[in-house]
Each structure stands twice: as structure tokens, then as C-alpha cells.
């Protein structure tokens, strides 16, 4: 995704509503680009008058922020307690093996980012895997395989069309 300095500038200005606005501004930028580009961190520091070290500290402290660009598709395994006792570690294992990456990483082709989340608060559905924002409940290893295959097939189709 193209990074636009002007756009980042606008986001920061919009969120600059006095004290405590740094996190809100970074959240907006994260939402827009799905990561925090270095330009954004520097710009946020300058515009909000916060030392760069402090902005960097905030950007690396909170789990919601990422300093690395994310893959096209996001797979997120809920690791909440209810999901854990219903088998989410096995699902994560399976995804890590199949994608050849660990949780928190993005595949080399930038197609997948694999993440974990501490609890989605939808425990009746456990174990849950969220694929590009869509919740799938009561997941099994087979269902995870099917989801992955589905995405890969769709991507191959797209490639063929291009």
C-alpha cells in the first residue's frame, strides 16, 4: 500500500484533540495502513510535540501496533482460555506448519500474516480462527486446512486472470 505523508498528516491533525491523543492518532494510522510506517512515527512525534523515543515506546508497547507491514490475508487464532482447553494450540501448530511461519510473522510472499489474540470474548464459539475479520467458530484441524486451501485457490485464480 502506498504511504501518503499528507494522509498521515491529516489523521494526526484530526486526532490531535489535546492531551493523550498520541495513542488515538497511532490507532488511526494502524487502522489505515495495518502497520505503522516509520514516517508516521516521526510525523506523529513532530506534530504532537512528543519525543520520538516516547512515540516509539508507545508503538512497541501495545500489541495492536505493528512496525512491520502485514500480509494480504490475516489469520488470527484466539488463544483465550476457553479456546485453549478446546484445542486452539493444535490449530496454531497446524497453521504454523502449513504456512512455514510462526505466530506474529508474515509469509515471504506477503500473502499471509499469522497472529494470535488473547481473547475475542466469544468463548461459546471456541476454538475460533478469524480470517480477514470473519469469525469461524468450533474450528478443527480439517476446517483450518479447508480455509487455507480456499484462500490459496482464490489467489491462484486471481494470478491466472492477471
Amino acid at each position: 500500500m502506498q504511504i501518503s505523508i499528507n494522509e498521515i498528516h491529516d489523521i494526526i491533525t484530526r486526532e490531535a484533540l489535546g492531551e493523550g491523543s498520541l495513542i488515538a492518532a497511532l490507532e488511526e494510522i494502524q487502522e489505515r495502513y495495518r502497520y505503522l510506517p516509520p514516517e508516521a512515527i516521526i510525523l506523529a512525534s513532530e506534530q504532537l510535540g512528543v519525543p520520538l523515543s516516547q512515540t516509539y515506546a508507545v508503538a512497541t508497547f501495545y500489541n495492536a501496533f505493528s512496525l512491520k507491514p502485514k500480509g494480504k490475508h490475516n489469520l488470527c487464532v484466539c488463544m483465550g482460555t476457553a479456546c485453549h482447553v478446546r484445542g486452539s494450540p493444535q490449530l496454531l501448530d497446524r497453521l504454523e506448519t502449513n504456512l512455514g511461519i510462526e505466530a506474529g510473522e508474515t509469509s515471504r510472499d506477503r500473502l499471509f500474516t499469522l497472529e494470535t489474540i488473547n481473547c475475542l470474548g466469544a468463548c461459546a464459539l471456541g476454538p475460533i480462527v478469524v480470517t480477514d475479520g470473519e469469525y469461524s467458530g468450533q474450528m478443527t484441524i480439517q476446517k483450518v486446512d479447508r480455509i487455507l486451501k480456499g484462500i490459496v485457490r482464490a489467489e491462484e485464480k486471481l494470478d491466472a486472470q492477471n
Partner: protein
Amino acid sequence: MLKIDSPAHLDTWRAELVDATDPERQRIAVCGDTSCRVYGSEKVWSAFTNEISQQGVDCSVDYDVKLTGCHGFCEKGPLVVIRPQGIFYTHVGVKDVPEIVSETVVGGRIIERLLYTDPNSGETIQQEEDVPFYKHQLRLILNLNGILDPSYIEEYITFGGYGSLSQVLFALTPEEVIEKVKMSGLRGRGGAGFPTGLKWELCRNQPGDVKYVICNADEGDPGAYMDRSIMEGNPHRVLEGMIIGGYAIGANHGYVYIRNEYPRAVKHLQRAIDQAEECGFLGENILGSGFDFKVRIKLGSGAFVCGEETALMQSIEGRVGEPRPRPPYPTESGLWGKPTNINNVKSWASVPIIFGKGVELFANIGTENSKGTAIFSVVGNINNTGLVEVPMGISLRELIFDIGGGIPNGKALKAVQIGGPSGGCIPAKHLDVPVDYESLNELGAIMGSGGMVIADEDTCMVDFARYFMAFTQEESCGKCVPCRLGTKAMLATLERICAGDGQPDDVDYLIELGNEIKSSSLCGLGQTAPNPVLSSIRYFRDEYEAHIMDATCPAGVCKGLITYSVIPENCTGCMVCLRNCPTDAISGGKQEIHVIDVEKCTRCGMCRSVCKFDAIKVI
């Protein structure tokens, strides 16, 4: 929208709204909470609203359809309740909608297959209130969640909403409000159980014009989701509680600090704030009383430690969410150095009930020192996963077996984990303990924020403890040494035990280290982080010793200590496991008994999950 400028005006509005409601009119409530939505409840709702006429179904009876908050019985979703009859349908799909309309709504007939079936008696149950899951509950805070549509403030008003606020602002002084909250016996529902009225008084008595109230909605405890459900299903009740709190304390500004993992809760709460401002329940000169109060939402960014009150305030101020030593307590020096009162979502939501239903009623519920109701999300290995509200003092047995429906697949209950990463586990032998602050503390658990995870016999308690330690270690902010390094050392030891490399003195080491971390950490996170480990050692020391001394995992969970093998008598040679094995560790031809190569096997569990004949065993 109407601007309400006096209590009389509110009463008139409410009377109009109530008059406009026909109690005999059929009302269909479709659960719109996250779980039911994933099962397709939104489509069910829109089928009720849009698609009926197109399908040629007889719609001669007029009815209302609402997408409501969480009904609680998440396991059976999507849930549909038809009132006034109170008919309760489970697992409703879009295809069932035309039949529900023609049979039940128009024809007044029950559709047997959609009813809840009692797994014990095998009988179907028609009425929501007769379903055991609901029958044993006392839903004070959650009572309207399954009834009103949280998108409209009018719905809340119809059910008496903002009546407590109006009464408080015009009939009581702030001191009287505090006195009543004290008399009610309400204690902090975030888990620690500090008396709410006393906290308000401490904050009120601080000098200074600027004070803040904060609603702690950073529900980070994995396995707990009642705060989310309250904010999604009845956000105005939380706001009403906060406004009353602001009046009592003398604060004009409130913040709701809410997890960004809860986008729908944020949306519903923001909409509620906007509506309350338009109607004059928030803003300047509320209801003409001269009292001003505003609420803003602040989003968390995925840091568990921010549920700790001093870290939370740091985060609102835009900084890294690291806790600081107390005292000074937030009531003395909180947000931006001003006196600040922080309460949990459930505490705030209890406040309007205390004034609406009466202090006595609230104080008469529960035990001597724990008043009112407690909300638990009962999750894990349990038949009826869901949100449960019960009077304080109910026994764990009633909660798990009468309401929760017991353990699935005929397994035995092993332990109940209460209070998440800060709490502890209670073994099955203590099931008759009453659920209140003190009794749970005595057993090494805490009331906590209300996550209750049920573990069956297949749960390895060492692995379970390791899970929580991995969680708190990851979430430790790193500011104080005992928590930063201590949790790491505990985790490393637990991982070693789970991998089969445990040392004979590991258990004693964990106990000693755990107690040190508890006594020397800076904030609640570190002070409680060893609890899951210490309590599991207290009750399940034999499991730790089996891992260390006998190199076995009795529950068959810890990968380093288990092997998968085929049970020859059960194997039909169907080749399913063989085809699904990711590492080609299974050999054997069609109708030949399969064999697992232990060297190649990664213990992923695939073969066991695909086998239809129970032919894979783990030892």
C-alpha cells in the same frame, strides 16, 4: 430527538412510550451478540423483517422484530424468543423463519424441533424461564439484554431507563447517594471487591474542583466477556451508572477505557453516548439539575496490564501503560494528577439498579459480605457455555451442573478456574463452596472479573498453569524486576516440566519463587500472576510429580511426554488417518491395521481427530 429538561418531562416521555407499546403485540427478539451473529443471527433477523412478505407466508398477525443484546445461552445460538408467550427457540436458521411466522406467530403453535431439549430428561421445554439454564439465575444486570434493542434509547426509557438518575439528581444530595451505595453493600465487580461506596466517598472528600470517573472496560481476562455483552446489549445502563457516580463524587468528566478487540461494544457505547447527549442525559445542565457531565471513549491497544488502574490512566494520558506504585491511590491522585474514581463495567451497571429497585432489595441478595449478583462467563468443557448471572453465595455445583448443564461427552469434571490469569483453580472436591469474595479467596482463587473456565479430565493441570504463566509473562510490562524476570523463570520451569525435563525440586522452586513474586511485585498483575500455578500445585501436586518423576502426562496433553498409537482392535484400516497425517508417519494398506511411526510423529493430533472408530490412543 427530544431534549429532556426535567424529571416531569422524562416521566411524560416514558408514559407516552409505554402507552404506545401494546403488551399483547407479538415481539420477536433475535440475539445479536457476537456468538449468535457468527451462527447467522443477523440473517435470521433480516429474514424476519424483510423476506417474509416475499415468500408468500401468511403475515396476518402484525409483529415486531428486534436484534437484541446477548441472551446469555450462547451455546444454543442463534436464539429467538417470542414474547409475550415467552417461547424459546434455539439454533434458529434462516430456513426456519417462514415456519416460525406461519406456525408460531400466526398460528400460535409450537415448533417442537426448535425447542430446547433437556439433556437429562429428554423432554422439550417451551418457555425461556423454564429452561434450567435460566431458571436458576437471577438476572438483575442482564435482565434487559435479551429484550431491548440497544440501538434505541427509547427502548431503555420504556423499561425505566434514566429514572434512577432523575431520582438521584433531584431527591438526593451527593452525600446521600454515597450513603445509599454504601448501604447496598456493592463491592467492586472488577475482582478485588473494594466497597464501591467507600471508594466514592474517598474521592468525593478529596480537595479540588476537577475530578474524573472512569469505567474500566479493558476486559482482558481471557475467557471473560460479560463486560462486552453489557456494553453491547445495554450500554445506557452503564452510562446512567457513571452519571450518578459523577454526581456523587463531584466529577464532570468520565472516560470509558475499552479494548479495541471489542469493536461492536465501542460502536454501541458511542451511539448510546450520542443519544444520551441529544436527550440531555449527558452534557450541560442534565435534566435541568445544573449538573454537567460528559463521557468520552478511550480505546485500549491490546495490553492486558492496562486493566490495572494506574496503567490504565497512563494509557488514557497517551503513554506506555506501565503501572506506578500506590499510594497515592487514584482517588487521591489519578488521571492527570486529579482525584479519580475507577470502577468496572458491572459495578457501574449495578448502580442504577440499586436506586431503581431499592437499596434494601439489592442488599438482601447474596451473603453477609458479598451483596447483589455476580456475572460469570461459564466456558471451556461445559455443555451450556454462556453468560450467567447468579446471586452471590450460590454453590459452584449449582452453577456448573444446574445452570451449566454439566460436562460434555460424559467426561468428569476436574477443576474450575476462576479469575483467569490472576485467579486459581478449584478442584472438583470443593464444588459446594459458595461463590463469594471471601470463600473463593480461601481456596486460592479469586472472584476476579468473572471468567469461569471448566476443565474436564482431559485437561492437564500443569499445561493449564503453563498457559496462564505464558500469558502473564507475555503481558508483563517489564517495569518491575520480580514480575519481569520472575514470571520468565516460572514459565521456563513449567515449560521444562511439560517437555519432560522436570527436576525433582522444581515444584518447591515454583512455590518459593511464586510467593516471592506475589510479595514483591509492583502491581496487581505481578502480585497475582503466580496464583494459577500455586493453586494448581496445591490441589494437583500429583500431576506435577507424574510429569517429573514418572515422565508421564496423565491427561495425555504434554507433547514431550506422550505417544500416539493405534488400538488394533478398533482399527478398520480405513486409511483416513493415513491420508491426513501431515508427516506421513502412518503406514498400512487398505483394511490392514495401521501403524504410527513414533519417530516421524509430531503429535499434532490430526489422526485422533479424523478417526471415526476411536482407534487412536494417547499415552
